[in-house]
Structures are given as structure tokens and as C-alpha cells.
């Protein structure tokens, strides 16, 4: 007996749809061949050039001769177009593999005497088995091109010398330099001392801002949800306001409120006799850090309040009733029942919030622009966190490669903290989650 | 009018070491009432779910009324199943819960109405016909779950 499976798989591997035609699925095969042809025409020709661009980052510089401007290879564009093709080709390749697998399995069925599906049945099984893939398709495309591609590009930049002033295209070519930039970051005093300093503060900031908001939100939620408090909805609606107002607006307002000389907060505290002399909220390095953490509570507590209220109202009443029967009072019920439930169900969000604060660009950039100055830092201020430092590096100083290196480090840090934490939460271990 | 035959049915979940159901043979004739009894995890539900078409059958053949239905999707098997948690659609009223399957099978409106009302009467659900499942007691919910299949199919599996 002929090995239909092998022959058809081989044919399909040769060209999309051939194996299907061999398996007598003519319409399906023809459609697939059409798709294959389309890919070949639109894609394969440029592919080689794209890969050349990705590996060499270009060979000719821009030249100007009199009035003639001849554009050379633009390394950065070549890099991106190379990536676009790379990702597209992965998608195409997976389609091709699916095509081979399909041909193989249909061939296999033929070997045991099952007649291959006609086009009608094919469509039906496609609908039955392919439904989840169809649902995923739009997101896969969008993710591949709008998230993976840009991030991959960002990662790759770290391995080039793309930076001002000597490696800016199109007049210059950008080259692959391997890990040189990473080594620079840690070897050069100037960069590394800034990095360690900014990194330390970033971690501290992320922890402080996450926990202060968490507990502030928890506290407010407990107060509002007490028995005997009326107009619960009203209170919650008011406290949700800071969350609803566009952040870039309220941060700028806060910046004005906390102006050391002219801000009303200082004046108020002086008038009330709480202070004897002005506090320089935003110009003293330590005080500035405290100020942004405190101000951040204003922005961050509503989220947790809303969340905690939601979780608290959904805790099974029977738990409390059982505790009542056991003779527990309010002070015992809270740590024994409420708290564990809250912690359990909010832990994953706490981690996400930590990651979010780690990269809370708006807060730092709009509130202090990283200031006050820190004379021992390179390109960063006392309150700069890694992400705002990167922003300055890319936009103001055009050190694109160094910015990418720091981005990668941020990613590695956040990813490892998050994954380590997720692993410890129950949600992650559940068979259903990751099976 | 349903006869169900299980012939050498086997279920192997991917990643599990031992199969959940091995070489299970059973003939159920029309009108017969069958009860599976056993400790939890012994494969009762898996078998039922295979009959209903909710799980793929790893090996063996399942026939209903003499036709092999291994590959037939659940909706074409003409089987009903009452789930442990009743699986009532919370967003629909009792009436709509019971009428859902009929609507999907394109019965005409008057017939749906007649069948549903009839079933409701038998199960004593007429007063609650416009309520949502949430507003029913456990026993009432169970009856709705039964009732939604009463009108439409022949074989009933009680999970």
C-alpha cells in the first residue's frame, strides 16, 4: 500500500495545497495553492532584501553630490522592515506547517480507508475545531505587529550603536555591536552609579507607592463598608473622582499645589499653625520623594477602595455568621476572615500594580521632571525612576542604544519579580490556568 | 425511542497516566433507567459526558439508535443532560431557559409555547415562569433543569 501520509505531506511541504490535491481535496487544495501563490508573490521577493537589511543594517551611506541627494541605506528602517518580514514569515511558516500536518493526517486516514472530507465537511470541521483559532486570529495579528514587533525592535537596538552624535542614520550606518552597550553601562562609572541609584529608588518607589495605596484603599473601604454608615454609594462615588480625572491634569495641579513658596498647601499648613516654616516639598531630594509617594496615594487609593469594597461585599455572609456562632468579635473577624480573603483575591493585582508603578512615567515626569537635581547622577534627577530616565535618554539625549539596554533590564526585573510572585499565588498553580 | 450502545469505550486525558475509562461496554434499551454508582473520580461523569458528546472518545464506538455517533457534535445527538449544578442560564427567565433549545431547533413560536407551558405545568413551575433562576429555590431549579429537556428530547442523562 502506498504511504499516502508521507507523499501528501511531502507534496504539501513542497508547495502549499499540493498534498491536499493529491488527497483529492481539490477545492481546498486549490484555495490553499492560491494563498501560497499570493504569499510567494507579495512576500518572497522582498524577503531576501529584508533579511539582508536585518543582518547588515545597510551598506551604503547617504551621499550628496551637488543638487543630487542619493539616499543610502537607512539602518533603522532596514532593521524594522527586516523584523516585519521576520514576524510575517513566522506566521506564514506556522500556516505552512499546519498545511503539512493537515495533508499528513488526511493521508493517514486514507491509508486506513477513510474517504477524505469534501469541501462541505471540511468547512464544517473547520468551524468545529477551528473556532478558537478564528477567535484568536485578530488578537494574534495585532499582538504580533503592534506589541511583539516594537518590543523586539527595542530589544535589538540594545545590541547596536544607534546613538548621537556619530551613529545617526542616514548619513551614518548603524552597526551591530553585541553586548558592548551592556558592558558600558556597568563598566563606566558615570552610567553605572546613576543606574544603581535610580534603580534603588525605582524599587523603593514601586514598593512604597503600591503598598501605601493598597492600605489606604483598604482602610477607606473598611470605613465606608461599616455597618451603620449611610450613603455608601455617595461616598464611593466621591472617592472615585481622583481616578476618573485625567492624570496629566491632576498631576500638574498637584505640582502647583505643592509649590514650596507659592503653593497653597504650605500656606495652609502655616496658617493652621501646623508648620513653623515652609517645607520645600519639591526641591528637597528626600522631601520630594516623600511628596510624590504621598501625592500618589491621592491618585491610587480609589482603585483599591473600589476593588476592596467589591471583594468585601462578595465575601460569603455565612463565614461571618459561623464566626459569630463561634463567638468571635469584630476585631477577631477582620484578621481571621476578611483579610485573608482580601489578600488572596487581590494578590495578583497587587503584583500588576507593582509593575505598573515601576513604570509609572506620568507621575514622575509630570510632577517633578525627575528633579530636584542630583549632582552625582548622569542625566537623571533625584526622583527619576528608570522609565523616566530612559525617556530623557532617548528623546533628549538620543542615546537610543543605552535606553534600550536599560529597558531590557527593567523588563527582566519586572518579569522575574512578577513570575516569582505569580507562581506563589494559587491562581497560577491551578490546573486550569496553565494546562 | 432511543437505544444507546457503548462498545469498548475508552477515555484517556492528555497528560494523565492511566485512562479514566477503560473498555466500557453497555447497552441501554429504550425506556430503561440506568444508574451509575461509584466513588468520585471513577469515571461516571466522564462516561456521561462522552455519551452527550462533550468529551471526545479516545477509543471504542458509541452508537445511538444503531448509528455510530463518535464524531457527531452534541447538538445532533438528540440527547439531554441535567448537570449537577443544573446549568441554568442566569440571564434568562424560567420560560426562556426551557424554550432555548426549542428556539435553536427552529420550532415555531406557538409550538414552543405549548410545549414549555405543558412542561411547566407538569413540573409545577407555572407560577414561576417569568422568574430568573436566581429567584428560585434549589428544588425549583432542579425542576427547571429537567423541564427544559422534557419537551425536546428523548434520552435524559442526569449528571
Amino acid at each position: 500500500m502506498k504511504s499516502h501520509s508521507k507523499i501528501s505531506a511531502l507534496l504539501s511541504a513542497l508547495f502549499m495545497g499540493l498534498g491536499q490535491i493529491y488527497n483529492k481535496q481539490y477545492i481546498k487544495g486549490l484555495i490553499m495553492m492560491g494563498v501560497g501563490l499570493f504569499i510567494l508573490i507579495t512576500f518572497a521577493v522582498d524577503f531576501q532584501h529584508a533579511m539582508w537589511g536585518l543582518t547588515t543594517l545597510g551598506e551604503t551611506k547617504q551621499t550628496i553630490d551637488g543638487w543630487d541627494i542619493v539616499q543610502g541605506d537607512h539602518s533603522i528602517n532596514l532593521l524594522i522592515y527586516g523584523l516585519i518580514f521576520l514576524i510575517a514569515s513566522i506566521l506564514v511558516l506556522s500556516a505552512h506547517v499546519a498545511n503539512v500536518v493537515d495533508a499528513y493526517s488526511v493521508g493517514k486516514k486514507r491509508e486506513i480507508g477513510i474517504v477524505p472530507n469534501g469541501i462541505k465537511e471540511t468547512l464544517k470541521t473547520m468551524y468545529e475545531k477551528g473556532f478558537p483559532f478564528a477567535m484568536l486570529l485578530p488578537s494574534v495579528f495585532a499582538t504580533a505587529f503592534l506589541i511583539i514587533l516594537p518590543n523586539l525592535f527595542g530589544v535589538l537596538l540594545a545590541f547596536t550603536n544607534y546613538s548621537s552624535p556619530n551613529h545617526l542614520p542616514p548619513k551614518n550606518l548603524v552597526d551591530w555591536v553585541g553586548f558592548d552597550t551592556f558592558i558600558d553601562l556597568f563598566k563606566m562609572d558615570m552610567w553605572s552609579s546613576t543606574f544603581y541609584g535610580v534603580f534603588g529608588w525605582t524599587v523603593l518607589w514601586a514598593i512604597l507607592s503600591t503598598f501605601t495605596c493598597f492600605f489606604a484603599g483598604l482602610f477607606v473601604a473598611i470605613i465606608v463598608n461599616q455597618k451603620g454608615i449611610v450613603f455608601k454609594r455617595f461616598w464611593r462615588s466621591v472617592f472615585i473622582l481622583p481616578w476618573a480625572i485625567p492624570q496629566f491634569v491632576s498631576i500638574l495641579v498637584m505640582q502647583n499645589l505643592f509649590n514650596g513658596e507659592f503653593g497653597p498647601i504650605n500656606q495652609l499648613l502655616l496658617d493652621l499653625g501646623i508648620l513653623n516654616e515652609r517645607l520645600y516639598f519639591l526641591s528637597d531630594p528626600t522631601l520630594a520623594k516623600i511628596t510624590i509617594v504621598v501625592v500618589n496615594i491621592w491618585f491610587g487609593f480609589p482603585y483599591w477602595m473600589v476593588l476592596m469594597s467589591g471583594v468585601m461585599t462578595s465575601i460569603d455572609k455565612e463565614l461571618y455568621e459561623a464566626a459569630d456562632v463561634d463567638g468571635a468579635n469584630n476585631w477577631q473577624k477582620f484578621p481571621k476572615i476578611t483579610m485573608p480573603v482580601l489578600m488572596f483575591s487581590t494578590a495578583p493585582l497587587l503584583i500588576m500594580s507593582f509593575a505598573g508603578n515601576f513604570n509609572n512615567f506620568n507621575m514622575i515626569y509630570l510632577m517633578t521632571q525627575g528633579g530636584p537635581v542630583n549632582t552625582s547622577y548622569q542625566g537623571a534627577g533625584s526622583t527619576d525612576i528608570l522609565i523616566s530616565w530612559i525617556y530623557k535618554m532617548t528623546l533628549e539625549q538620543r542615546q537610543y542604544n543605552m535606553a534600550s539596554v536599560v529597558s531590557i533590564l527593567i523588563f527582566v526585573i519586572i518579569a522575574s519579580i512578577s513570575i516569582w510572585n505569580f507562581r506563589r499565588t494559587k491562581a497560577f498553580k491551578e490546573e486550569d490556568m496553565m494546562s | 425511542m432511543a437505544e444507546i450502545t457503548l462498545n469498548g469505550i475508552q477515555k484517556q486525558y492528555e497528560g494523565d497516566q492511566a485512562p479514566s475509562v477503560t473498555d466500557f461496554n453497555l447497552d441501554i434499551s429504550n425506556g430503561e433507567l440506568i444508574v451509575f454508582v461509584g466513588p468520585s473520580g471513577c469515571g461516571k461523569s466522564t462516561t456521561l459526558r462522552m455519551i452527550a458528546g462533550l468529551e471526545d472518545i479516545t477509543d471504542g464506538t458509541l452508537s445511538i439508535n444503531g448509528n455510530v455517533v463518535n464524531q457527531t457534535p452534541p447538538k445532533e445527538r438528540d440527547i439531554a443532560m441535567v448537570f449537577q449544578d443544573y446549568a441554568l442560564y442566569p440571564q434568562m427567565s424560567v420560560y426562556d431557559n426551557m424554550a432555548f433549545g426549542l428556539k435553536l431547533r427552529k420550532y415555531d413560536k406557538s409550538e414552543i409555547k405549548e410545549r414549555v407551558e405543558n412542561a411547566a405545568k407538569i413540573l409545577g413551575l407555572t407560577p414561576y415562569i417569568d422568574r430568573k433562576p436566581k429567584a428560585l429555590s434549589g428544588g425549583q431549579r432542579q425542576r427547571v433543569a429537567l423541564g427544559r429537556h422534557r419537551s425536546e428530547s428523548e434520552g435524559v442523562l442526569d449528571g
Partner: protein
Amino acid sequence: MTSKLSRNLRLVFSYAFLIALVVIVFYPIAWAFMGSLNPGDSLSKTKLFTTDLSFKHYIYLFKETNYLKWYWNTLKIALGTMVLSTIFVVSAGYAFSRYRFKGRKYGLMTMLVLQMFPSFMGMIAIFLLLDRVGLLDTHIGLILVYSGGGIPFGAWLVKGYFDGIPKSLEEAARIDGAGHITVFFKVMVPLARPILVFVAVNNFIGPWMDFIFARLVLTSPEKKTLAIGLFDMITGKSNTQFTNFAAGAVLVAIPITILFILFQKHIVEGLKAGANKG
């Protein structure tokens, strides 16, 4: 008796705290509002209690700038983002929650990991990509960027919510004779309404606040969004129109705040879903 007393005491303190908190929450808001009515150019000169008020900044917005046009642009982008991202996120979240297929685990891992990249790591790449497909400086391009960017987080959230819906419901529907599409639209989507509203509201709000990607993608002034329009008033050395900015900001904040309060219940639900399953 003592317990009653302590209860009352507790309530008194609680109300005092709540009222204090209301003041703290409202103070910056009231201050920004008064700033927008303050006739000068500087926010720092705002007084909370004063009769020296003027609507000139609001008039300026409508007469001297394209404020309405920005508003309209932003509304379009916000609606587009809302629809598109909800489609992306719900379809992906549903597939991840309800189906078992090859690569599911890796898909979920990827989604998790992708959330952790610093957001503006690949801005240049996005710019050139949009250019390549001819979507640079178009609202559609920006909508795509926003909707795409929200997929990992949103899909996880929606997946978590669907995970909480008993599987038996959809199995019952399948036995009732429903196909994939019917199960999805008739049974699952109505049940997932809270999370859908949450995702939709979230994505609707995003474009009102972002000034980084909007500035990257949109270059022509007639396509500006509110956030850029307002931000331009206060950046650069000759742009110190803080009070015009405040006026514009007040008009942005009002609808969003209303939206937030209206959908409060759904937001709680959505967050809870995220909390339960992360």
C-alpha cells in the same frame, strides 16, 4: 450599653474621617476648577475663595483654538478604540478560557510577559510600521495602536472572568443545540457583561489621557487629540497657558467622571474578576 457607646463613637470618628477625605479629594479638583476661572495665566495664583472670576479661558478655548475639533477627534478615537479593543480582548479571552488547544499555555505566558515591557520601548518601530501600511497620521492608526497595546492585559482579565462562569452552562447550551457562535453570543457574552463594560469603559478612557502615542502617530494639527492640544498649551518656553489648560481639562474631566460614576458597579465587577484570576 458600653457597646452601643463604642459603636456611636466609632461612627462619629468614621464620619469625621470620611468628611475629611472628601475635603482632601475635592481640594485639588476645586482648585483646578477655580484656576480655570482665574483671569490670569498662572495656576499658582489661584484662590479658592474669590469673586474675581472670568470665563475668558473657556471663551478662548472655543474661539482661539480648535477645541471642539479636538474633542470630536478624541471622541472618535475613543469610540473606535473601545469597539476594536473589546472585540480583540473578548474573542481572545474567550478562546483562552474556553478551549484547549496546542500552544495555549505559551499563548498565555506570552500575554503575561508582554505586559511587562516598558511601554515606549518600541515607539520608533510603531511609527515606521504604521507608515509602511499607510496609517501614519490617521485616526485608524492610533486606534490600532491603542487597541493592540491593550490586548495582553485585557485578554487576561476577560479570560479570568470567563473562567469563573461554570462550564456546564455552555455544555448545556451545546446539548440544547447551540453551535460555537450561538453559545458565544447568546449564553456567554450576556453573562460576561460586567467585564465587557469594564473593558469598554477602560479603553474608552485611555485615549483621553494619552499624550505620548497620540503625538507620535498624529502629525497634522487638524487631527490632534485633546490631550495633545491641551498639553501643547503648557510645554515649550512660550507656552505657559496654564489657566487655559485648566479650562480645557475641566471640560475633559466632566464626561469621564460621569462615565466612571455611571459604570461604577461594572468597574467593581471587572476589577473583582481581575482580582480573582489575575
